[in-house]
């Protein structure tokens, strides 16, 4: 049984990891505390639902529509709102992004009501038996998430733009002196982070129903993952996401699903006490 739970936790944790990769990018590069990150997932889930309900597009196909849509939404929101928060005190950032999240939540409630909306992909009910039973949608979600996380990691490590993003994180004015258009880097980072929420949303909808407040749980969880893994660290976010997935699944079974936040906040506090920079964080990096 415990193996079954751990396997399930790892799979769903993969999606949390990808969500956290987006947030850690935004947090690490722009120093923006984005409390609307979870609501972006929610928006993506509703969009996936609409594409399914009105046009019959399979959620796994709509990844190709929802991800670019959320990327563009991120680019736009950055231009309208987020770029004004760069360098602002965290309190200001929290007010604005919490406000944005409430706005999105209320809009969802007005448009879609409070009902749970779910989709059925032909794959939804299929199960793989590999000693433990694995839901096919969970396996697909895990594989896509891990692949995309690795792609993002390589993008940051190997490409010129990726290096410019890391350089901007470490020293903004030096990056400017290198000829980097820092504002564009910020816009791109926010758009990538938000685009990833769209990807998460599309692969989550066959697993979780969409409802207006689903983002709340996601955002708390992703922040825990980001701090656990180390600010701005992609491998940290990947491992942190999986750990949180396992904690969530195991604690929900042995105690009660309502306890899961309590459990990962205990872990969160322990990590802050033992290793404040997170698993892969660099000491001092948070001060740059």
């Amino acid at each position, binding site marked *: 049984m415990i193996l079954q739970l751990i396997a399930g936790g790892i799979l769903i944790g993969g999606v949390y990891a990808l969500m956290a990769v987006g947030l850690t990018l935004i947090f690490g590069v722009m120093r923006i505390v984005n409390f609307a990150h979870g609501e972006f997932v929610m928006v993506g889930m509703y969009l996936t639902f609409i594409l399914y309900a009105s046009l019959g597009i399979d959620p796994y196909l709509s990844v190709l529509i929802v991800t670019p849509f959320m990327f563009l939404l991120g680019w736009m929101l950055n231009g309208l709102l987020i770029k004004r928060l760069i360098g602002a005190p965290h309190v200001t950032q929290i007010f604005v992004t919490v406000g944005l999240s409430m706005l999105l939540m209320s809009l969802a409630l007005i448009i879609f009501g409070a009902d749970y909306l779910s989709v059925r992909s032909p794959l939804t009910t299929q199960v793989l038996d590999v000693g433990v039973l694995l839901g096919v949608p969970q396996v697909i979600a895990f594989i896509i998430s891990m692949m995309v996380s690795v792609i993002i990691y390589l993008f940051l490590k190997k490409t010129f733009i990726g290096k410019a993003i890391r350089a901007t994180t470490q020293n903004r004015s030096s990056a400017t*002196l*290198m000829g*980097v258009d820092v504002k564009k880097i910020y816009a791109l980072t926010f758009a990538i982070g938000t685009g990833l929420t769209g990807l998460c949303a599309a692969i989550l909808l066959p697993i979780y129903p969409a409802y207006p407040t689903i983002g709340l749980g996601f955002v708390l969880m992703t922040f825990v993952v980001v701090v656990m893994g180390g600010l701005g660290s992609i491998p940290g976010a990947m491992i942190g996401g999986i750990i949180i997935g396992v904690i969530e699944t195991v604690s929900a079974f042995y105690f009660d699903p309502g306890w899961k936040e309590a459990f990962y906040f205990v872990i969160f506090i322990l990590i802050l006490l033992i290793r404040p920079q997170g698993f892969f964080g660099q000491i001092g990096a948070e001060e740059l």
Partner: protein
Amino acid sequence: MMLKIKSLNAYYGDLQAIRDVSLEVGHGEIVALLGVNASGKSTTVRAISGLIDRMEGEIYYNKELINDIPPNQRTEMGLIQVPEGRQLFPFLTVRENLEMGAFTKEARSKLNENLERVFALFPEMKNKEKQLAGTMSGGEQQMCAIGRGLMSNPRLIMLDEPTLGLAPLIVKRIFGIIEEFRAMRITVLLIEQNVKQSLKIADRAYMLSNGKIIKEGSSSELMNSDDVVQGYLGV
């Protein structure tokens, strides 16, 4: 004139850091901007790079008024600053720092050529290619910073206190390298507190004090001027 600054005033908030600074740098020259701490030297170069929000006056680069050109585009024009205190990317490797220097299109097309040039000047950078820049000694970091500046394919390089806090042997070496820029056809604006060594390699110099230019002239004139000798050369 490659660089011409007319009546520059620059402010940090309400605080005026430099007053009515005018200076010129000709093609192929090494010009020194000298002065003690807080005399406005760094503010002047930051303004030339476009990093100061509030300023008045005119900055011409190759006869073009560049006041309204954003800093990253000034880099694309070959107007390069090696900032005070190195300002490397500490968690990027030496190699990655150098590559970041070649971020602009033109510099990127000459990346390999410039990388060889940097490794020839600073062989130790080749050996430390894979080391995180933040973990090197001050002298090595300065070499990396100058190397990064060279990677940007500069036409005019502004070096802000490149020898500050370094051991005498490295200071000597860095001054030697700045002299070599002449042969590379790179124009130099050198910001320094080390008046004596700077005047030795510079063609001309300006002395800043309390945000104002108090003296200017050829290096030999300044070297023989009484107040420079008394005030800075400590003879």
